[in-house]
């Protein structure tokens, strides 16, 4: 899956989870950029991303992930 495709699908997930059709994420997007993205929504977001791509983040990845770009890197590394 290309990085572009990953971002397209990530956008869909973000829009569903935050119920906002305007959201477009980039490599640099972080929780600071989306108002509703707090620590509680974060759990829900990761679960939704895992479901979308049929993969699981391990604890080390969850702890170290800094932005959406890093999230996309992990996804690509796991689904090939």
């Amino acid at each position, binding site marked *: 899956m290309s990085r572009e495709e990953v971002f397209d699908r990530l956008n869909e*997930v973000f829009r*569903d*989870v*935050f*119920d906002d059709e305007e959201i477009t994420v980039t490599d640099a997007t972080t929780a600071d950029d989306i108002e509703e993205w707090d620590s*509680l929504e974060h*759990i*829900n977001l990761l*679960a*939704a991303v895992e*479901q979308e791509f049929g993969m699981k983040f*391990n*604890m080390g990845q*969850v*702890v170290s992930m800094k932005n959406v770009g890093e999230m996309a890197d992990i996804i690509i590394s796991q689904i090939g």
Partner: protein
Amino acid sequence: MRELEYPFDGELILKKSKKIKRALLEGRSDFTKKRIAVLGGSTTHDIIRVLELFLLEQGICPVFYESEYAQYWQDVMFDNPELLSFAPDLIFIHTSNRNITVWPSVPDPQERVDGLLAEQYDHFRVMWEKIAQVYHCPVIQNNFEYPSYRLLGNQEGVYPQGRISFVNRLNEKFYQYAREHGNFYIHDINYLSASYGLDRWADSLYWHMYKYACCMQAIPVFSYNLANIIKSVFGRNKKALVLDLDNTLWGGVVGDDGPENLEIGQETPMGQVYSEFQSYVKAQKEIGVMLAVNSKNEYDNAMAGLNHPEGVLRPDDFVLIKANWEPKSDNTTAIAQELNILPDSLVFVDDNPAEREIVSAQTAGVAVPEIGTPEQYIRVLDHSGFFEVTSLSEDDRKRNEMYRANMARKVQQERFADYREYLLSLEMQGTIRPFEAVYMARIAQLTNKSNQFNLTTRRFTQAQIETFAADSAYITRYGKLTDRFGDNGVVSVVIGRLGTMADVEVYSRGETPGDVACQPEKQTKEAPGSVACQLEKQIKEAAGSELCPRGEQGMPDADVLHLELWLMSCRVLKRDMEYAMMDSMVAACRECGAGTIMGYYYPTAKNAMVKEFYQTMGFEKTDETDTGVTIWKFEIPAEYEKKNTVIDVESAS
């Protein structure tokens, strides 16, 4: 909403919860508001988020109190003022094996393990007792799931030091408490986690990262199961299973294949599947579920199928059999009408998606589960929780027979030209008495289930019912009715409160003086009822016999009985039971020196049938508010002629 019906896609619900919530709120407006306190021993945020959806789906609009992280015990034991002022209608305690603090270790002698067990149990017991004392509301308590690893391997359940043994014993103590205390319900997460898969459920990432007791993906299953208990406690269970026949209760089409060729019985694997399903359906009767048939068939063919020698279900297991060529949606509506229940009390089971679609589209409110293939029928119906058991009353177990008796009465009725003659032929015997301990569960159930013949539609928990029964300011009566065709059980409930004409103003707003005056923990300093509350206490202390609460000695001006609740089960409509109840209220007023009875009608979407009820009882309308509430007055005449002349009533005196 399809997305929220079992079997559902939990991950979709988690992802799209905001959108689903919006659609639910736009879809209807007749929600019942309930205040639910969630006291957690772990994170509860997403449990509440999803629980809200499932409750909205059931017509319950929840307002939540959420304890701070893991403060379940402290909130109760140290009287958190926020929780006190929240005044919950229901408390849910979300604890898990992560909250067990005193696990045994392998070297511990048996006595020490027993001591730890008692200590851990007491931690919970004191909290439940405190809740019962302060909040008087239903409590739902998780039991404990099994630990995710086993130090003693397969012997964990054998040695008392093993954690599985400890969890089993602790759970048994929880069940014992539930058996001995009404209004206390177990949420069985032990079963739920097993059904879900314990390894997935216990994914420790969610505990260590977010302090969730189970994995995120299990939360919809969890919240669904919990919502089932809540809707059942608040009287929103389904009442009847409406079943198709061909390829639903047996394999094959009886009209085409002939009854001898149906797949049912032990001969073939598919025959066994249908036998097991018929046994499951038949057992539903034991928990009070009514069974009806809705099948496109010649009636004789349907009966031939139901009399198949290998079958488990028999024609007389059903209260109604509709086997004809009418659209199934019409049959479903007719079944609801003939049983005197609303379509939203029905569950329609049919293997054919097209039939499900027409019933679903044409008959609003009927639950139409996607039951899958025959070997899945039991799981889908069972896990759907349509008939979630929270109380098992004698009436539940007998309901099928009662409705069958009703059908027999109808046949009887057709033989009489004169209606009164028919009523007399039923040889009805009534019992009308103040609330008694054995009937509290049934009375509470009726207040939550009765929608049509219900003047004020006030819902009460069993704890509240018990409070009324014990409070001398209230006159309570339940009515039981038996006739030659059977026992109808408790079918009518009336609650009146003694007061003065000044109270009419409160009632006309849909409130009761009891709301403000007699619940000190909900009361604010300025509440106008505080004086009344003290007065009430004095009266209670001074009051004499139970039957004559205030008497002339107590409060001479409390001479008006305000009817806060009057309901009757529709299964005894037009049997004159309401007249017998009226006679009994008049008699009760006489004993207490109350000369006036005030009745109130609060309109709802479902109770139009009793709009003019008080007029038929001889009341006069005195007022009507702009919200449609009507106020009725009955001055008890010196010579009161009993209105009931057909039921032989044994009453309190």
